[in-house]
């Protein structure tokens, strides 16, 4: 981290803001009943995707977690989040062509698939990492999952296989202390998920998932290991989701409302606020620059909305041609 220039730091802040604004756009459109599918807000999680993806090369493989349906990751990797709303409206310009209303794919930028069953990320990403290793060009695969995903068998099998074969993959666990309505304390017997890495004889680290710089630094280290051929690692980024599991759904723990205090407590460590404070303190961010970035992000979000609304739906006659590749 020490080697981040001021520009790098501002860039991370900028990405956080863009992520948040695009997420807010989706949240608003969901509340207006405009989205055609569910939306899982990334608010609270931004620093993870943004920080970790910012160390990736264009040709590195990326498997996003469901939060923000890709936004933090693509923004982190320097891609355009514009196709996000289009996808949610089922438009042809969506990043999955509007076919599912959810999934993201971008071959040029290393995003090859996304699945709707939690945990698949683990095994598919092992496959991307296997390809990376076979390619022999120093590519890595970065795969984002939730704490819940780690409870699935896929996690175990993929981590074991990847470690045995020294596959270049970094698993970033976004531990928001909860999967759907079930808290981690009731669905893990151990405290830190990162400790599970020991079962696979690979590095596992607990990171402050609200601190974009901490995430970036840890990601850089893990990616370096992978690129060098030293195999997989796991980063457990502790975070919190500021909104309900998905928009319009109850916000409960088991069946009782989540604690207001807990939410308020975590919001004090909002990743955007933390980053801004730090950079202001370091005199890297000025009030002007903050406003400028905010404005730019608002503009960008507006553009995204307009683009989505004006985009055409896919031509239904293509559906038949999509079942099998030519």
């Amino acid at each position: 981290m020490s080697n981040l220039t001021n520009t790098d730091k501002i860039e991370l802040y900028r990405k956080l803001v863009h992520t948040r604004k695009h997420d807010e756009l989706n949240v608003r459109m969901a509340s207006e009943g405009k989205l055609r599918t569910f939306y899982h807000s990334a608010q609270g999680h931004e620093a993870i995707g943004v920080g970790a993806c910012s160390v990736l090369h264009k040709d590195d493989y990326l498997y996003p977690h469901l939060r923000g349906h890709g936004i933090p990751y693509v923004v982190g990797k320097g891609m355009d989040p514009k196709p996000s709303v289009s996808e949610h409206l089922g438009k042809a310009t969506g990043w999955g062509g509007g076919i599912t209303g959810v999934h993201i794919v971008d071959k040029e930028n290393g995003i090859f698939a996304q699945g709707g069953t939690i945990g698949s990320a683990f095994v598919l990403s092992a496959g991307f990492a296997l390809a990376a290793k076979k390619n022999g060009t120093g590519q890595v695969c970065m795969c984002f999952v939730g704490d819940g995903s780690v409870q699935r068998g896929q996690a175990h099998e993929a981590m074991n296989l990847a470690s045995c074969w020294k596959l270049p993959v970094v698993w970033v666990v976004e531990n928001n202390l909860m999967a759907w309505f079930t808290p981690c304390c009731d669905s893990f017997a151990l405290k830190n998920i990162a400790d599970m890495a020991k079962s696979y004889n690979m590095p596992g680290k607990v990171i402050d998932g609200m601190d974009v710089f901490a995430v970036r630094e840890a990601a850089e280290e893990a990616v370096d290991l992978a690129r060098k051929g030293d195999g997989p690692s796991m980063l457990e980024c502790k975070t919190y989701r500021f909104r309900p599991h998905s928009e319009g759904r109850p916000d409960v723990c088991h069946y009782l409302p989540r604690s207001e205090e807990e939410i308020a407590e975590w919001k004090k460590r909002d990743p955007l606020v933390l980053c801004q404070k730090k950079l202001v303190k370091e005199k890297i961010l000025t009030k002007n620059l903050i406003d400028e970035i905010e404005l730019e992000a608002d503009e960008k979000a507006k553009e995204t909305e307009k683009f989505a609304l004006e985009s055409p739906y896919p031509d239904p006659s293509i559906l038949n041609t999509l079942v099998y590749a030519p």
Partner: protein
Amino acid sequence: MKEINYWQAIAEALAEEMERDETVFIIGENVQEAPFMATRELIQRFGPERVMDAPLSELAIAGATVGAACAGYRPVCDLNFADFIYCAADEILLKAAQQNFAHAGKVNAPCVFLGVAGGGFGTGPEHSHVPSAMVLNNPGLKLVLPSTPYDAKGLMKTAIRDNNPVCYFFHKKLMGLKQEIPEDEYLIPLGQADIKREGTDVTVVATLYMVHHALEAAKQLEGKISVEVIDPRSLEPLDMDTIIESIKKTNRVVVVDEDTQRCGVAAEIGQQIMELAFDYLDAPVARVCSANMPVAGAEMEKYCIPQVEQVVAAIQSVCY
């Protein structure tokens, strides 16, 4: 009589059976909030020992269901989306299904696998399927597909009391459907079709939400074609007698099913009709099913799953 909706009917059945039989419990992800049954009644009444929020672990949840069932309990395993049956296929389609058979009937596995099924909300390929054929292709499982609150309640109670594993798929689009049902306890036997509408020109066989498509089609054709709508309510056991009786009268039949067409329920029923009533058929059995593709999401969904117009067209095509 009292008015009740579809999810309330399911919740009521669960509550009554849990009250009646201590061995009944619910297990699954977030079943305390019961996301798809939108009820907190069960957890409040029966507590976390009998309404068990499990980790996000379909293999363990389904496997533990089978184990506990073998050992004398009657677990109701909530899969969330019925599609997630793929995430525990070995446990459900092999272990649960084959327990009794593979052990010479010495130990059986009475349990219910609950899942919300079907399209209508554009939820995309892994959240919109009605995986009926997969269940039927693996004998040992029963399959219940309720189309009304009355059926949902009566069939759930029977499913829980059945000594076999039962897949019970309920439909997203029916959640709010209301109906008057008896105040008193009632059960509906599995394998007893219900004639949802009488008619003389053509027989339409349908389950779940497709029953409502069939009824709507029948209404649109009123005065022109007299449509009989048969809802088998369970596909294993399957009441072919009622279907064949109807065909002897109408000589024409359309099967409407929301599972994928290929190797689906409609092909099986069509083939059975051919085997049992070939000489009564004035036209080939027509089928209206989900297209041979994954179920697309959002705007594209409607091109993948059966629409009322298709049912109308199929009825017209066999009534040439």
